């Protein structure tokens, strides 16, 4: 599969009207976020606080995780540790298999996507039903999510209507969101009632109380954990925060950053199993410790998966989630993907104009565009920069080290631009000129004018 972002992005952008629709839909969410953030006078101080709490948590991660484990265990929660995705999947499967579970309902969790849990369980004969509406849409379509908060944002309602007609038997041509949502609800209701276990992610794990907090807008996590007796929650090691008292800082930032809502519809606290039931928490590393050890990148572990950096990213909005070769798209996905597999995702750190909007919108102040810049150096250091770019930069660097060479090269380039722009058929200038005029070149450079006293 071609993982090169520019190619995939060009394919998405080629459908101008769809790209514009996608851009507008996400900008709408960004504007809602702006209104939500503006309603909090201390917004920037909240971001400072959140970044500080996350820095504290990440600097003492082992201690907080153990504190969480102790307190969770005392609450009757069974805590499991998984080194990687494979071990995570095995643990979850063992829990489910030992209890004879055949159908599980699952609320949204990017971690289980990362681990490939659904195919793992399905290969072992379990039926896994995603219960978040967007996740359900992409599950029915056999697609990965294209956004971490709005998994089906790449699909317009007409295409969801066609999908539901085929999969859920809604009337042909029906695209009324209310009708489609109702059809999904009725279908999901049967699954909720029939499931023997519910899987969720974890938004925050509280070290001092040993509880976990799961945030949804649809209440699907609550349905999935209230009806079946077994609840398995999967969390990355970075989800732990020191105190329950810190939670308010994050909840105020999370909902506003994600959708502009003052608060998510459902914020559910789990401090133990339901009566007669079981609550398992699987704590997963899967490469996070390595990121933690790399100073410029450890801040990326502070991410609370609000999706604001996707919504604000002018590149993501116009290239779509599938243009990113990693399962998490947008600026945070480009960072995490390039950290996980630099060779496969080598083009992602360059899928950014480095505008910095992601950094300013991030509720926990992850310096995303500086991380992308640092990852470009990482790509270059690994020797996997395209040859042409590497040589071009080396040559330019050599020329620019010598003012006389620079003057000579500048003069030649301007003469070429003036004389025969039509001759530019290959190289960067030709790519530039596909949709843009090349700049006109003056006969004299600034320094030539300055030298003859013309300034």
């Amino acid at each position, binding site marked *: 599969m071609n993982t090169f972002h520019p190619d995939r*992005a060009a394919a998405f952008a080629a459908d101008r009207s769809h790209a514009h629709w996608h851009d507008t839909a996400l900008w709408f969410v960004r504007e809602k976020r702006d209104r939500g953030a503006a309603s909090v006078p201390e917004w920037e101080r909240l971001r400072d606080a959140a970044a500080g709490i996350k820095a504290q948590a990440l600097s003492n991660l082992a201690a907080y995780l153990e504190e969480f484990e102790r307190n969770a265990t005392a609450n009757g929660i069974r805590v499991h540790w998984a080194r990687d995705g494979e071990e995570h999947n095995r643990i979850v499967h063992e829990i489910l298999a030992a209890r004879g579970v055949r159908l599980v309902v699952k609320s949204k969790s990017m971690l289980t996507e990362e681990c490939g849990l659904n195919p793992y369980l399905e290969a072992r004969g379990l039926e896994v039903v995603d219960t978040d509406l967007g996740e359900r849409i992409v599950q029915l379509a056999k697609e990965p999510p294209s956004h971490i908060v709005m998994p089906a944002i790449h699909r317009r309602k007409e295409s969801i209507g066609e999908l539901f007609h085929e999969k859920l038997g809604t009337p042909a041509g029906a695209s009324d969101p209310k009708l489609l949502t109702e059809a999904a609800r009725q279908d999901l209701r049967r699954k909720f009632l029939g499931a023997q276990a519910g899987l969720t992610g974890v938004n925050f794990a509280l070290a001092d109380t040993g509880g976990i907090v799961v945030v949804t807008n649809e209440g699907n996590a609550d349905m999935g954990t209230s009806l079946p007796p077994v609840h398995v929650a999967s969390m990355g090691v970075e989800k732990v925060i020191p105190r329950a008292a810190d939670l308010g800082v994050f909840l105020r930032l999370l909902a506003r950053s994600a959708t502009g809502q003052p608060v998510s519809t459902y914020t559910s606290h789990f401090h133990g199993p339901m009566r007669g039931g079981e609550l398992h928490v699987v704590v997963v590393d899967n490469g996070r410790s390595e990121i933690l050890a790399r100073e410029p990148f450890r801040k990326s572990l502070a991410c609370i998966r609000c999706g604001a950096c996707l919504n604000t990213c002018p590149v993501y909005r116009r290239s779509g989630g599938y243009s990113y070769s990693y399962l998490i798209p947008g600026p945070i996905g480009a960072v995490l993907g390039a950290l996980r597999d630099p060779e496969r995702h080598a083009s992602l750190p360059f899928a950014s104009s480095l505008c910095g909007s992601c950094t300013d919108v991030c509720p926990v102040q992850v310096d995303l565009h500086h991380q992308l810049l640092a990852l470009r150096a990482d790509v270059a250091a690994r020797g996997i920069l395209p040859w042409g770019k590497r040589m071009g930069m080396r040559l330019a660097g050599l020329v620019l080290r010598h003012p006389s060479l620079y003057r000579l090269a500048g003069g030649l380039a301007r003469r070429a631009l003036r004389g025969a722009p039509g001759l530019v058929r290959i190289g960067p200038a030709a790519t530039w000129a596909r949709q843009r005029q090349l700049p006109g070149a003056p006969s004299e450079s600034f320094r030539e*004018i300055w030298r003859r006293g013309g300034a």
Partner: protein
Amino acid sequence: MGKVALFIPCYVDQLYPRVGLATARVLRRLGLEVEFPEEQTCCGQPMYNAGCAADARPLAERFLRVFGGYEAVVAPSGSCVSMVRLHYRELLGESPALRALAARTHELCEYLVDVAGVRTVDGEFRHRVGLHPSCHGLRELRLGRASERMDPPRNKVRELLAPLRGIELVEPSRPDECCGFGGTFAVNEEAVSCLMGQDRIADHEKAGAEVIAGYDMSCLMHLDGLIRREGKPIRVMHVAEILEGARLAQ
């Protein structure tokens, strides 16, 4: 009378000498002595942003050597200044000389407002103008408040342009959406880059702008290339060109 060194980015030197000239004129009209150290070439940002730190480092060293002795260095570019101020330490390591250089290197508008203390702008520009706050000046140098941020609004470029007689500042619906230039990004991600630029131009057109004004010719070069390809009536101008006829005072 103070003295400033002009830092004219390589592409301005080669392609937009008029912007360099306008910058020199604006500074001279403030009574400043303006020097142009001819040994300067490029700040190294293209190499650095491509990940090629080793190719950028000698240019950063050269820059420090050429400009290190001046009490102020002024450039008609937010992006190149942010390279010097924020990223040279990653290339050269912290040193008193670099700290001094970083603190004394300014983008033109920033220099006028923060260092020269310009409060009065007496001039005329009878056009409808949309501002294009290029990203590095906006979010690295904080020439204005980025729309994501919720701290008190401030915009140094607007403060300089708003007093001009006859100027009408119009507001695109997205105040600071990136134009899609992004250095090598413009070529690397040509499809998205051009789409971003076209959207940016359309937003300014919808707001009624005749002129898109900015402090980075690189972004404006990209927008200008799209504008001329499509034969649109809108045009781009550097802030220095708009201010060059005005009288500035504290």
